[in-house]
């Protein structure tokens, strides 16, 4: 089936998949959002791309075609139920093979962001090192999480300053990032730790790691959810940038503006 067929009934009326602004330099630039049958935050990722000024295209897991998108987001959820291991089965999806191919090949390769389950999928697909195991406290946890952006040079973080702090929601059961010490040292040494938890490690992740990138910086995995902090009124209660109104935090928007900036610039 093609991407056009999978537009499912959405609440809130038809989700504009076109850019808001017809003569913006972003015209023609598209960010693909992958939908697995158990994806949950795919619509939110689409909305985030739109709020950042871009156009989103929904991609279907069973498809063999990336529809010429300029970047890809693998959103949160439970791709195929994830009872075995988060992301274990999704790795074999036809679309993942396309993504893996397009994502390798240096800094100009396809920018790919894996959020939460998407991050898990990227590790299972060996596009990123390490793995995710159950949170050290064994519970699902949903909370507003403060992070430090440690690398502001990846395709997905250039809108931030190095060492800038942000607050975005975290929500998962299997969010404990693990890797052997050699891999961890390598990640640190190459500046590939992109996000680190601050004000308390919520799940036992090694070295407080919340997000990492590949060597080229086009593939980034991030455990917390930037797409849930892009719209005032529906985000976290707090922001690292000072006072905000109720659920007014929009610190996650920079992730999406970063990639759009990279794509037009």
């Amino acid at each position, binding site marked *: 089936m093609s991407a056009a067929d999978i537009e499912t*009934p959405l*609440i809130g009326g038809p989700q504009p998949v076109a850019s808001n602004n017809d003569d913006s330099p972003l015209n023609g630039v598209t960010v693909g959002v992958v939908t697995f049958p*158990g994806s*949950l935050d795919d619509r939110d990722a689409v909305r985030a791309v739109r709020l950042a000024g871009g156009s989103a295209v929904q991609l279907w897991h069973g498809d063999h075609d990336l529809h010429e998108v300029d970047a890809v987001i693998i959103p949160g959820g439970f791709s*195929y139920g994830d009872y075995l291991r988060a992301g274990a089965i999704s790795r074999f999806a036809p679309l993942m093979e396309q993504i893996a191919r397009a994502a390798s090949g240096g800094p100009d390769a396809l920018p790919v962001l894996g959020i939460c389950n998407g991050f898990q999928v990227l590790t299972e697909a060996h596009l990123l090192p390490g793995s995710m195991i159950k949170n050290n406290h064994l519970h699902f946890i*949903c909370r507003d999480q403060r992070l430090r952006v440690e690398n502001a040079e990846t395709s997905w973080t250039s809108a931030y300053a190095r060492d800038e702090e942000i607050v975005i929601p975290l*929500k998962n*059961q299997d969010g404990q990032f693990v890797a052997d010490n050699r891999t961890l040292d390598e990640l640190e040494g190459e500046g590939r730790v992109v996000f680190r938890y601050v004000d308390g490690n919520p799940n036992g992740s090694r070295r407080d790691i919340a997000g990492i990138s590949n060597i080229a910086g086009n593939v980034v995995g991030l455990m917390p*959810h930037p*797409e849930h902090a892009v719209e005032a009124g529906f985000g976290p209660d707090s922001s690292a940038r000072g006072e905000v109104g109720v659920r007014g935090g929009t610190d996650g928007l920079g992730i999406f503006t970063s990639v759009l900036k990279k794509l037009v610039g």
Partner: protein
Amino acid sequence: MTAETTSRKFNIDTVANAEATPGQALPWAELGLKENEYQRVEEILGRRPTGAELAMYSVMWSEHCSYKSSKVHLRQFGDKVTDAMKEHLLVGIGENAGVVDIGDGWAVTFKVESHNHPSFVEPYQGAATGVGGIVRDIISMGARPVAVMDPLRFGAIDHPDTARLVHGIVAGIGGYGNSLGLPNIGGEVVFDSVYQGNPLVNALAVGVLRHEDIRLANASGAGNRVVLFGARTGGDGIGGASVLASESFDSSKPSKRPAVQVGDPFAEKVLIECCLELFKASVVEGIQDLGAAGISCATSELASNGDGGMHVELTNVLLRDPSLTPGEILMSESQERMMAVVTPENVGAFEAIMDRWAVEYSWLGEVTGTGRLIIEWDGEKIVDVDPRTVAHEGPVYERPYSRPAWLDGVQADAFAGGQPTDLREAVLELMASPNMCSKDWVTDQYDRYVQGNTALAMPDDAGVVRVDEETGLGVAISTDANGRYSYLNPYEGARLALAEAYRNVATSGAEPLAVTDCLNFGSPEDPEVMWQFAETVRGLADACQELGVPVTGGNVSLYNQTGGVAIHPTPVVGVLGVFDDVARRTPSGWREDGQAIYLLGTTAAELDGSEWANLRGHLGGQPPALDLAAEKTLAAILVNCSRDGMIDGAHDLSEGGLAAGLSEMALRFGVGARIGLDELCERDGIDAFTALFSESQARAVVAVPRSEEVRFNDMCTARNFPTIRIGVVDTENQALDVQGYFNLPIAQLREAHEGTLPKHFG
């Protein structure tokens, strides 16, 4: 994927066989039927039932499915609805869930249901499948589910069995709801030893649809095809409907099949998406979810709500366990299944959608014009009934009821506990108590962000979700119940539950519109319990009429008792309100320095049934007095304040009174306040302790920006509603400073408030 036909030869009891062997003994008693009920089945059929028919009648006539004890009372919810109340009602009581018009062509459907007994037996799966079941009710109306809530009640917090239930149930609610991508936007957590052997796990779901998308559970149009899709049918919960949900526990009862259902949330998530695609493509004529009583319920309800009959070949059902007998297949409560009616032209389109989502399905038969529900097994007739007699004409009991003799004594026993010497300690004790403490340990295990439309969730007074992204149109929901109030006076208790939910919704800024309820009670065979039930329904129906909000649907859970001891009558009431734009929702805390803090309403010495009395181990007297006219005015004020931007924070007062209200408002954003009680005490003729701990109704605390004070006061005066300025927000001083009485640093308050659940369950 095509349906593979399974054909197995059992020594099956056909209709012909039943006619030929009238004397054959059947296990009707083991299946939960009473002798008179069995006789009635024989009368209806004019012969003995077949084994399969017996299975159908027994599950469908169980208390859980037939409402046989509660029906005569529940009628009041319909009888007491005025035309004005029907204004927003698109679908009322009787369908899978009610549907309410919220404007702009949008509608919402919502309903609360119990999964109490299964959750006691297997907490994780019981709670998980409770969420799964209520979500399927919502889908079957044609809606996309958009949020869930979970009113929970457990035994004493320190009882050795409580941790098992809390851990399992909370993980189950989260495990299922989180995997479906449904934000959890509210609920309740109550601890009381009366729920020790009977925890209450109620689950509410809300869905959104366009008016034209409403689907009903009926099978019409002879020649239309009947299809079963979703998970395969296994031995799950056979006898669950009749044994688990309708009888008291008796672990010695032999069970041939597992009475426990295991949920597969991934299968349900796929089911949601594929149903929405079916609706969008207009491929189904009628649809019904499979819950209690499985295929028995779905076929008989679809057929009896339609205009003809139905013919089904049961060997077409895809099985997980090939050893199931026809009767067991009819009774199985395997989760994540749906049944639909499809016109022959749409069969191909239907199959294409199933294939796309990799959902299994099998065509079972078709709608007929005979008026009969005929079920065959490999071509042999095993069921031949009028579907109405199965689905709608079950037994109805006018169970005897009588006011308990002990009630006079209880009501005469007013709280006479002495006042605490230290109000500061008392507030700390209250805010750390099991019922008043922070529920973060629970709610942090739930996803409240998914779908990106959550405008308010825990710990605010109501959960608020946006429905229309263009306009901001949205809904607010709150669920409430106070079992202690209902124990003291079930009529008033029900009215108080409604009033609290109504007040919570209005406090968030939404206009209350409709009601759903889950009535949790002991055994209806106990006349005193039956009286509590009758009084509750009467109270709730009366109060709905007075407030002008109709009951749109709900659920009754009886037999919540262990040995001879019943739970407190616990009518969980959910109120749904509407926002023209959720951007104006009011959070339950203050934030801006210098804003004025007002108390709306009056306070009397009403400590009977209160949290404070509960902490002193006392339960007696009468619950707080209720004035629904005052509640209405208060709600109107709160909604107006939100609409006109007159307040920045609001919190209704209920359990724990002003002490809890002020503490929670300070904790919401971690901002302190200076409070003065003297004027209030003088006006209402009460002392400081009463001012802080009384649970008088129709009250709320609001934070008013300086610039709005005049307008705010004018509005309250115009409506003749008492209001009094009791303090000011103070961002400098990190404390709740009740002048002349105590100064409570917020850090200390937070430590007490947030430490309790982790201490017991962390």
